[in-house]
């Protein structure tokens, strides 16, 4: 029996439908194995099953899991509980919720230590040691706090401390940094890297983030539709992927230095199969350009890569020449000296910002930097403040209710909350038809634009055309939003924003809720629509690479101020403000292996 984690042919099903199929891998003590995949690929189910229990409604229908030679599924309930207490530790995303809100941090940690047989005094002393180990300042003070009194990063450190308290043999990190700001995420990752050697456990990292996995892991497995489609050393899988899915996934990740001018992102067509949908053959075949009859009928076996045509490309070759992007024109949106406060907290301090005609301005910052407040103020949805906002030379009223109909049409918005973005009671057709200007407004043809069509349902402005321009299948027009995937919903939202031929579209984190392969398609759509209509974007994101892909100019916000602004390449490649530099450093993960080695030797 070998040490570490060994998974053999693990299969988990929900009422007969397999969510995880025949997964095998092993992780030696002291090494880290990364499991990557998009939403619904089965990675969370897999993570849960390793702890000896599938999620509610599921059942392990095949396979074995060994940890240091212990057959986890062979344990009796009582033995399993003892094993979990002594050998397993799990860190989930949104760490704060795995701490009891009614207990102080110190006693929560001490309780774990007490369960491992420490005396009261020892437990208290060790608690402080653990908090120190996860690099929390002033451990004694932290121990006396309740979880809600800590920041997200501090909560995550406490949860890691709790995981270390039991000296686990298997540490499962399930999306450990999702939801944290880039700089905090970086600190947490540094911490995990540093502790890894110290704890000597087998570490399984579950993530959707390829860069993260590449940075932290020795080996990776790529999960698609419940099966491992490729596995091997992190460096080779991520730099020379053999499976078309892995390659396409890597190709769809925006990277700093890649902009829409240099090359369009490669989106993967279609969507992953729902559990149980796939009958036989390769699950990826329906989305793969290289798929043939064999792929559709015979399930390939896994030998490093589960593919009949390793090395083939899933995405049809494109003329990836430089894109022609029109030069920006005269100033369209001018924000001057905008100051906004919520109660006694000032969230914007005299912000100046200009967006020119046909220009994409990226607004970058971490949570709480004021970027959304700024965007909502421009849209007229935010609280009142001082300062001026002008659009094409005329000043905009503070609230959207005070703007006249023609002005309102000129500023539209695409929202982050994909699910709330569309009225759940309306069909896609109704949603788009209600956004068309002729329904509520007979406006005179704007200068410089072709005349408006007369009736809805005909000509330029009907729901069919809007849907088509957004790359939506026309048969979706009759569906309600709950039948659509996240990407489709966001395409409808974009079609709706463009229905009234706006001058400025504010995109507030439009892709942050989407998987990377879907995100790539939406980003391309946004780039295409901009090129076709000459609209301006104020594009907000916490993700520098995403902003870098679209934006002509970038403004960096921190604590309600714009700390740096300039052409996109300049801001990303030669940042002048130290804060920008730290953001760029946190976002830059390629080449992954070098970073990883640095950490290992640090």
């Amino acid at each position: 029996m070998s040490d570490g984690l060994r998974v053999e042919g693990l299969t988990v099903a929900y009422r007969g439908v397999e969510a995880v199929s025949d997964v095998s891998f092993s992780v030696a003590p002291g090494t880290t194995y990364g499991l990557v995949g998009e939403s619904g690929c089965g990675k969370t189910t897999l993570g849960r099953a390793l702890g000896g229990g599938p999620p509610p409604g599921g059942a392990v229908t095949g396979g074995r899991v060994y940890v240091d030679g212990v057959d986890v599924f062979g344990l009796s309930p009582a033995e399993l509980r003892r094993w979990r207490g002594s050998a397993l530790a799990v860190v989930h995303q949104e760490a704060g919720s795995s701490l009891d809100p009614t207990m102080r941090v110190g006693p929560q940690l001490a309780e774990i230590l007490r369960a491992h047989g420490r005396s009261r005094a020892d437990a208290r002393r060790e608690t402080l040691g653990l908090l120190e180990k996860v690099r929390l300042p002033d451990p004694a003070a932290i121990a006396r706090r309740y979880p809600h009194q800590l920041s997200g990063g501090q909560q995550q450190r406490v949860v890691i401390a709790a995981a270390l308290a039991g000296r686990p043999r298997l540490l499962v990190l399930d999306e450990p940094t999702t939801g944290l700001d880039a700089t905090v995420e970086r600190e947490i990752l540094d911490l995990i890297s540093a502790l890894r050697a110290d704890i000597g456990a087998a570490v399984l990292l579950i993530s959707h983030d390829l860069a993260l996995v590449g940075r932290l892991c020795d080996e990776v497995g790529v999960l698609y539709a419940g099966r491992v489609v490729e596995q091997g050393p992190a460096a080779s899988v991520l730099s020379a992927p053999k499976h078309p899915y892995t390659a396409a996934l890597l190709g769809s990740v925006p990277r700093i230095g890649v902009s829409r001018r240099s090359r369009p992102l490669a989106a993967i067509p279609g969507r992953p199969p729902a559990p149980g949908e796939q009958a036989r053959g390769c699950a990826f075949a329906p989305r793969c350009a290289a798929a043939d009859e064999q792929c559709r009928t015979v399930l390939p076996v896994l030998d490093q890569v589960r593919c009949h045509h390793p090395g083939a490309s899933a995405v049809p070759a494109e003329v990836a020449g430089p894109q022609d992007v029109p030069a920006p024109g005269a100033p369209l949106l001018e924000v001057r000296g905008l100051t906004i406060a919520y109660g006694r907290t000032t969230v914007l301090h005299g912000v100046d910002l200009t967006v020119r005609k046909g220009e994409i301005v990226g607004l970058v910052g971490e949570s709480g930097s004021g970027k959304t407040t700024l965007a909502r103020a421009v849209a007229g949805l935010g609280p009142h403040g001082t300062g001026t906002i002008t659009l094409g030379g005329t000043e905009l009223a503070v609230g959207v209710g005070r703007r006249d109909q023609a002005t309102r049409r000129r500023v539209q918005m695409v929202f982050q909350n994909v699910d709330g973005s569309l009225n759940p009671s309306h069909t896609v057709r109704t949603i788009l038809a209600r956004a068309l200007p002729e329904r509520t407004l007979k406006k005179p043809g704007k200068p410089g634009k072709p005349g408006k069509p007369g009736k809805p349902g005909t000509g330029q402005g009907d729901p069919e055309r809007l849907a088509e321009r957004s790359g939506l299948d026309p048969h979706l027009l009759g569906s309600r939003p709950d039948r659509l995937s996240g990407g489709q919903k966001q395409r409808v939202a974009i079609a709706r924003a463009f229905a009234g031929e706006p001058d400025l579209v504010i995109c507030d984190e439009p892709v942050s809720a989407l998987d990377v392969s879907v995100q790539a398609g939406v980003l391309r759509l946004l780039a295409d629509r901009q090129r076709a209509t000459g609209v301006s974007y104020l594009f907000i994101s916490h993700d520098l690479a995403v902003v870098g892909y679209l934006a002509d100019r970038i403004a960096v916000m921190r604590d309600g101020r714009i700390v740096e602004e300039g052409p996109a390449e300049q801001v990303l490649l030669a940042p002048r403000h130290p804060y920008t530099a730290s953001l760029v450093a946190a976002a830059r993960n390629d080449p992954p292996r070098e970073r990883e080695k640095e950490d290992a030797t640090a």
Partner: protein
Amino acid sequence: MRRFLLRRLATIPLTLFAVSLLVYAATELVPGDVARTILGREASPASVAALRAQLGLDRPVVQRYLDWLSGFLTGRWGDSYTLGAPVRGLVLDRLGASLLLAGLAFALLVPVALTLGLIAGVSHDRPADRVISVTGLTLGAVPEFVTGVVLLVVFAVRLHWLPASAQAPEGASPVTRLGHLVLPALSLVLLCMGYVARHVRASTVASVESPYARAAALRGATRAQVVRRHVLRNSTVPATSALGVQLQFLLGGLVSVELLFNYPGVGALLLQSAVDKDLPTLQAVAMVLGVLYMLIVLAADLTYRLLDPRVRLGEAVA
């Protein structure tokens, strides 16, 4: 916390003022001449006019309201039209009796409802949960006087275990007096039990399925340990607000329970004074009950805030 308390205390006079306006306006608008009501149909116009003057009914309404309000605040609650006796002693006597009954009901309600809610929540979706949930739901939907009738027929008329009247004979021992209160208190408990248990059950289920409970189970804690250490606190604290709501319900239920069991409480007095158009008594009872309600809401809010560290210590400091 201190700011919350001050703010809440500051709203009390305002609410009191609103309640007093409402009470006074309602009683002021009672149709018919009060003096005539008191003296009866046969009284001469002169004696009616004399009584009107004596009661101060010939003065402007604002002045009478202000007099009444200042009188209420200084403890001069006037004399009952029908009994001729001072209202204050009467109302406070009856209030004491009602509080005894309500207190007994509440003392029974809290442990029973919490326990049942916890059992239902921990055995989520299993038979014990079904039985508790459906029973609580059913009993909570039935008016307390109906439950009371059934209890009376079973325990007083058929089995003779407990007395049918809530009022113990003069000079009875405390135990006997308590025995007389059991059936009325029980009908109030059965009314409120389901609602509180439902709240406790919901927060118990949420707590049992919460990430922190799962994390504790993944660290090897037994189910009993998880419930004792993590679930208990997190599921009972939110119930304090449900208890506040139910305490209000319980007071409202006093009116019909006191009527059914012939109990001389403040609820029966409210009803009697409304029927008799005994305005000073009606005003005093309505004011006293209004104040009591307000204090209950405040107490429930405060308890909840004291028990929940997230509210007690404010939001994240970092």
